């Protein structure tokens, strides 16, 4: 499958490299290259374990893109593939980066004093949130954040984003800006949206399980989860239009 948006295309690398899958991949690449794209994204998200067949396939794709004058970028690269590319001294021969999330999003990889930050803009739709969550997951994997902490951060991301969607009055096409910035032994998450004011720190975290079961509670659980899963949370209303929520969590 490829996505045709503003002269870039994305093609998924198949896990099983039988003859049909390889033919399908290169057939798709050929069609894409005929469109003379600016960039071809090769989605490696399914490659937890890369074989020599996958490396050959990527190399051949790179050669074809070079020949067609199109830039090629590997996205959602997992550790297994990254390790193999490094062992084979091929890592620097490919361009590796973050994915585009949806039409109109502009993820960037920027340097900070102590590492790499992830910046995303995603639509306030469930599809936009889920797609951005997947990119955030990849980012945490690449950073080497320990499993439980990474899971906590993903839950926090999901709960904050769905709370914004639910309470801010944004439409499905409005954007939420997100930045994740590792700093020494902590990571900071910043969400910004232009919806109605909503302060997630205003809710009480006095969640009483016994009472929740008795009263058949279904709401307000997300804010408790957010507040208990992070070490710090701050809300600011900037001017008339912008909500900014900043959360920090120790990752040591």
């Amino acid at each position, binding site marked *: 499958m490829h996505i045709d948006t503003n002269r870039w295309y994305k093609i998924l690398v198949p896990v099983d490299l039988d003859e049909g899958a390889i033919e399908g991949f290169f057939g798709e690449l050929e069609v894409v290259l005929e469109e003379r794209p600016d960039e071809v994204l090769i989605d490696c998200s399914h490659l937890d374990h890369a074989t020599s067949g996958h490396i050959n396939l990527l190399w051949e794709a790179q050669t074809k893109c070079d020949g067609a004058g199109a830039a090629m970028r590997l996205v959602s690269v997992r550790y297994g593939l990254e390790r193999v590319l490094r062992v084979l001294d091929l890592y620097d021969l490919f361009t590796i980066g973050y994915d585009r999330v949806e039409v109109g999003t502009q993820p960037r990889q920027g340097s900070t004093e102590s590492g790499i930050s992830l910046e995303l803009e995603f639509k306030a739709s*469930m599809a936009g949130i*889920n797609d951005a969550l997947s990119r955030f997951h990849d980012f945490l994997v690449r950073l080497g954040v320990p*499993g*439980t902490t990474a*899971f*906590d951060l*993903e*839950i926090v991301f*999901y*709960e904050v984003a*769905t709370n914004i969607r639910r309470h801010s009055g944004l439409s499905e096409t409005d954007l939420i800006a997100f930045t994740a910035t590792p700093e020494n032994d902590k990571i900071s998450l910043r969400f910004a949206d232009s919806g109605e004011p909503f302060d997630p720190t205003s809710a009480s975290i006095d*969640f009483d*399980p*016994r009472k*929740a*079961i*008795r*009263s*058949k*509670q*279904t*709401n307000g*659980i*997300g804010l*408790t*989860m957010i507040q*208990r*899963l992070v070490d710090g949370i701050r809300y600011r209303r900037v001017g008339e239009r912008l909500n900014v929520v900043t959360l920090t969590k120790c990752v040591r």
Partner: protein
Amino acid sequence: MFKTEKISETTIVIYTSKSLDNSNAHEMTAALSEAQEAGYRYIIIDMRELEFLSSAGVGSILGVLGRSREDGGDIILCNVRDRILHILGVLDLCDFLTIKQDESAAREFCLAKDV
């Protein structure tokens, strides 16, 4: 829709998918309510596939658990992965939910309670 399996006249198993979140929490609530309406006092939620649990997912269970207990039954969670237990623990829920190691232990619990 979640897969279900009738164990006895009073016990049914509901199998979750990979995630229980905003996209399907309402379906879980509906499945649990339907089972309660059908007279199943014991509902086992088999979480072997579950990798992601949001607050909406937690709410889908908490919202109907009280009714099962009021009817003399219970909702039993089994095959719960560590990361899901961790989330339930963050909410201090582990001591207030019936959680069994696997489906066999959950079935035994229901059988013992139902005599």
